[in-house]
């Protein structure tokens, strides 16, 4: 079985679902037998999910509108 270090070397691609079937097989065998790496993988996957679904830094429409209105007003004054 591959070591934790070898697992970690492929980890970024595994998380992005970007590994070949042969590599995947090795990684999943490791995951089934190594608790630490399993926790790492499980929590990282959940982190990505949480961040993706968080809608972080979404500017509310009532903040967007005045900004764009101000810009457009400036541009119109310039243009005319």
């Amino acid at each position: 079985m591959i070591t934790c270090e070898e697992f970690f070397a492929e980890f970024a691609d595994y998380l992005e679902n970007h590994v070949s079937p042969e590599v995947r097989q090795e990684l999943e065998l490791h995951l089934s037998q190594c608790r630490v790496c399993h926790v790492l993988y499980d929590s990282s996957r959940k982190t990505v999910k949480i961040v993706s679904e968080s809608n972080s830094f979404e500017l509310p429409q009532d903040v967007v509108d005045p900004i764009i209105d101000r810009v457009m007003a400036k541009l119109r004054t310039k243009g005319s």
Partner: protein
Amino acid sequence: MNFLSEAQLKDEFGPFIAFRDAFGFIPNLLQAQRLLPRVIEAQAMLETAVRLREGAISRVQKERILLSIAADQRNTYCVALDSRVLSSLGLSDGQIGDLLNGSRQAGLSAPDFASLQFCLKLSRHAPSVCRQDIEALRTCGLEDESIFEAVVVTALAMYRCTLSLGLGPEPDFGPPKLPSTRIDQPLGPTPLGSLPDLHEAAHRKGPYVPAPYLSPKTFAPFAAVQQSRGFIPNFFRAQTLRPDLVEAQLEAMGRILLSQDALTRVQKECILLAVSAANLNSYCVAIHCDLLRGLGMPSEDGDQIAVDHHQSNLSESDAALLDFAVKLGTGDPEFSRADVVKLQTLGFTPEQVLESVVVTAFNNFANTLSMGLGIEPDFAPPPVFAGTKVHLSPAAPTPMQQRQEVVHVSGTLQDADADLVAQAQGGQLEAFEALVRRHTQLIYRTLTAILGDPIDAQDAMQDTLLSAFKHISGFQGRAKFSTWLVSIARNTAFQRLRSRKNVESLDEGEYGEDRDFRPRQVRAWQDNPEQCHSKSEMRQLVERGLLQLPAKYRVVVMLRDIEQLSADDVARQLGLSVPAVKTRLLRGRLMLREWLSPYVTATYKGAAQ
């Protein structure tokens, strides 16, 4: 006579000895490269590993492939040399003549004949090779190891043919016994000759032969690649049936591509990109675009070279260098000494001309190998590259055209924003407003990510939009409009940072950064961690976590995980290489994981029971 003058190099030069031992003499093709001993070493390494070393297929089988391809390419130099080699291995003149004529009567077994036909197809129309060709070989009884070696030998044949076409060495033996007409029989009966089902080919992932996992820990060349490039390209991962071949290729690549004593690395990458594009090789186009970005070339410039280097920002002499390489790399029968002379007239030294020939030859090695094995791209090829530079028969559609998700018209990108952009460029304010409304969140998040301060980012919005309007007439449509907007937002943010005088660089350190970062929290998380906090609590947690990340990680995580751009798009927008993006993405995600951990582990006190 060679096209280039020769320097003195003693016959005791290591690679020369290897060749004398194997062939009984030093081929003129090697002598013609005396100006740069390192490229002779490279060729010797490839030939020793691919041609001479014992493998799944015999030496005679390999030499048959080399000779047949040389004859098919009308390469008198290689035909003369390879005929002599086969003769020394015991083949009769009659058998060699049959091979030169592409005749079935060469006394070949059915698998040998099928293998030879496959190699010819790969050398002639690499983009038309698909998984079914490999299946057909298996049906004929060929093992995966033999198929793999046949592909690599074909790649070597293309290397040697390109090299000898470009250097014009005197044949070692004469006169070559080429038939008067090109062998143009269809490449094999069915199923080999049947048209590939491109739809299926596009959707079945390569590589075509198994590639056992090989660890960088036990295989030092992989560790070295990981160290220098930040990742192990699929090109090498697909060849693990023969680790020794991977090693030889890496050694050869180092000698050909990494030195800067003749051409610069950028010039060499441009050659590799332009010739790969001409050969319709989406794998190599993607990797060289990425490498050029890593060497500091803006994405659009690299993309433009892939589409048409004449329209790029290259100097006149560099454009001529690419003309030379493309003509040579596509095996143009018009290629001649005049092309070499022209480059020298433009100021290129003999060493530089020699190196451009060698780089082009190596490119064809890589192009042939990647197409023959069906290697999946590591990154998306540039969105504007659709394999439109068709020098093959137009009747032969390429797998690449099937793979493209974006439809292109005459080399420019089909962008959903294109109509509005045109109107905005014509001065229509409503169109401009619609455009910026479409991309408000992307702009805002880019600003927040770089500035690390949401309020500051809101202030910077106005400057960004005004700057976008001011410069929109200069937007040429070579990149997506959203990519261009992000670059305006980046510039605006950087101006603000500079005025704050606490610039946090987004660029420092490419691959090696924080490699040793190791996760600390190893307690298991809850099954549904998002359920132990309200949605707004979760959002605040994530936002606070993001704000405390260093900017270079924050930008990548926000564009990838919140804006949901692909890693390739993030690389384009930030002008980084894809491996650099992946490294930063992982690091950023792991830091967020550490940050979130205390709130979501299975033992978290606030957890719902």
